[in-house]
C-alpha cells in the first residue's frame, strides 16, 4: 500500500466531491419540496389525491434506486422530446438529479407525513378558528412545527442519500467515488484510492450521523 499519490490527486478528487455535494443539496431540496407536496396530498380529504400520492410512494419505495437512475438516464431525453417537441440535450447530471428528486420524494413524503400527523389536531382547529384558510394554516402553523419535529429524520435520510449518490457511477458521472476510481486506475493504485474514498465517505457520514444523534437528544422533549 502506498498512499503517497493521493495528496497530488486531491484537487481532482475535490472536483468529484463538489459534484457529489451538488447532487446531494439539490436532491435533498427537490426531494423535500416534492415530498411535502406528496405528504399534503396523502393527507388531503380528496380520496383521489390521497390514493395518487400513496401509489407514487409505494411505487418508488418498491424499486431499486439504481434502476430509477438507469431508467431515467435512458428515458429523460425521450420524455423531454415528447413534451417540448424538439431535441433537448440533457446531461447525465440532470437525469440523475431528476431520478434522485423523484425517488427521494417518496421517502421524504413519509417522513413529512409522520411529522404533520404528530402536530396536535387542535393546532389546525385553532388556526381555522382564527380565520386562516387551509393553505395559511398549513404554511404558518402546521408545517413549521412539523419540520422542527422531523429535522433529525430528514437529516438521516440525507445522509443515506449522500451515500447513495455514489450510484451515479453507473452512468459515468464523475462524482467523488468515480473520480477516485478513475484516478486510481490511471496512476495504477486502484486499491489505495478506493480505500481513501471509503475513508472519506465514512468520516463524513459518521460525523454527520453523530451530530444528528446529539441534535435528536437536544430536540427530544
Amino acid at each position: 500500500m502506498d498512499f503517497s499519490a493521493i495528496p497530488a490527486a486531491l484537487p481532482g478528487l475535490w472536483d468529484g466531491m463538489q459534484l457529489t455535494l451538488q447532487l446531494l443539496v439539490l436532491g435533498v431540496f427537490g426531494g423535500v419540496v416534492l415530498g411535502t407536496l406528496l405528504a399534503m396530498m396523502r393527507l388531503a380529504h380528496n380520496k383521489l389525491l390521497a390514493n395518487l400520492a400513496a401509489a407514487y410512494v409505494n411505487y418508488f419505495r418498491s424499486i431499486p434506486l439504481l434502476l430509477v437512475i438507469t431508467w431515467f438516464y435512458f428515458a429523460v431525453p425521450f420524455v423531454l422530446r415528447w413534451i417540448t417537441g424538439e431535441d433537448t440535450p440533457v446531461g447525465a447530471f440532470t437525469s440523475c438529479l431528476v431520478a434522485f428528486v423523484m425517488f427521494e420524494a417518496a421517502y421524504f413524503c413519509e417522513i413529512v407525513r409522520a411529522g404533520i400527523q404528530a402536530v396536535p389536531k387542535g393546532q389546525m382547529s385553532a388556526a381555522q378558528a382564527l380565520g386562516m384558510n387551509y393553505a395559511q394554516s398549513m404554511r404558518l402553523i402546521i408545517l413549521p412545527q412539523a419540520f422542527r419535529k422531523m429535522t433529525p429524520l430528514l437529516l438521516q435520510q440525507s445522509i443515506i442519500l449522500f451515500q447513495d449518490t455514489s450510484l451515479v457511477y453507473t452512468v459515468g458521472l464523475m462524482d467523488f467515488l468515480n473520480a477516485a476510481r478513475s484516478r486510481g486506475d490511471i496512476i495504477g493504485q486502484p486499491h489505495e484510492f478506493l480505500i481513501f474514498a471509503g475513508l472519506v465517505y465514512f468520516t463524513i457520514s459518521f460525523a454527520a450521523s453523530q451530530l444528528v444523534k446529539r441534535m435528536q437528544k437536544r430536540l427530544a422533549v
Partner: protein
Amino acid sequence: MNYNWDWGVFLKSTGIGDEIYLDWFITGFGWTLAVALVAWTVALLLGSLLGVLRTVPNRWLSGIATVYVEIFRNVPLLVQLFLWYFLVPDLLPTPLETWFKQDLSPATSAYLSVIVCLGLFTAARVCEQVRTGIQALPKGQTAAAYALGFRLPQIYRQVLLPQAFRIIIPPLTSEFLNIFKNSAVASLIGLMELLAQTKQTAEFSANLFEAFTLATLIYFTLNMSLMLFMRFVEKKVAVPGQLAAGGK
C-alpha cells in the same frame, strides 16, 4: 429520435441462439433471488449474533459490535462492493487468490463478492433491529430468568430472542425487501441479474420503456407479495397481548 412502441418485444428472438428476451428476464430474476436469499441468510445469522453482542453486559463484546455497525453503515454500499470485488481477492493467500481469479467463472466470483458484501452490509442493519427488539423487552424478563436460575446464554435463547424476533418482524421485513433492491448493485460488477438483463434488453432491442416497465413490474410485484406474506407471518406468530413495539 423516433420511438417504436412494441409490447411484444419480450417474445422476440434476441438473435443469440434461440433465446427470446423473456428468457433473459427469467435468468436475471433467478440471479436476483439467488443473491438476495443467500445474502439474507448471512445477514440474519450474523446480524442476530451482533445484535446479541451489542446488548450483553460486556464492554468489549458490545464495543466490537458497535464498531462493526458504524463501519458498515457509514460506507456506501457501492464502495463496499468494490472493496470486496477488487481489493479483497488481492489480499487473500496466493492459492485462494488464484482460485478466485482464475478457476472461478466471472459470474461465480462476482456472485460470491456480492453475497459477502450484501450479507455483511445488511447484517449491520439487522443487528440494530435485533438490539432494538431486545431492549424493548421489559427488564423484568431478564431478572425473572436469572431468578429462575437461567444462565446468560439460556436467557437469550429461551427468553429474550424468541420474544424480540416477533416484535421486530416489521422492520426486519423492510430490511428483507431492501436486500432485493440492493442486489441491483451486482449489475455494476457484471453479474447478470435483473437490472443488468433489463439494461441489456434495452440496448439490444431499443425498446427501453418496455424493458424497464417490465423490470419495474417484477420488482414491484415481488415487493408487494413478500410484504403481504410477512404480514401474514407476523399475525401468525404474534404473542397475544404483547404490543408491537419494534423500531420504525
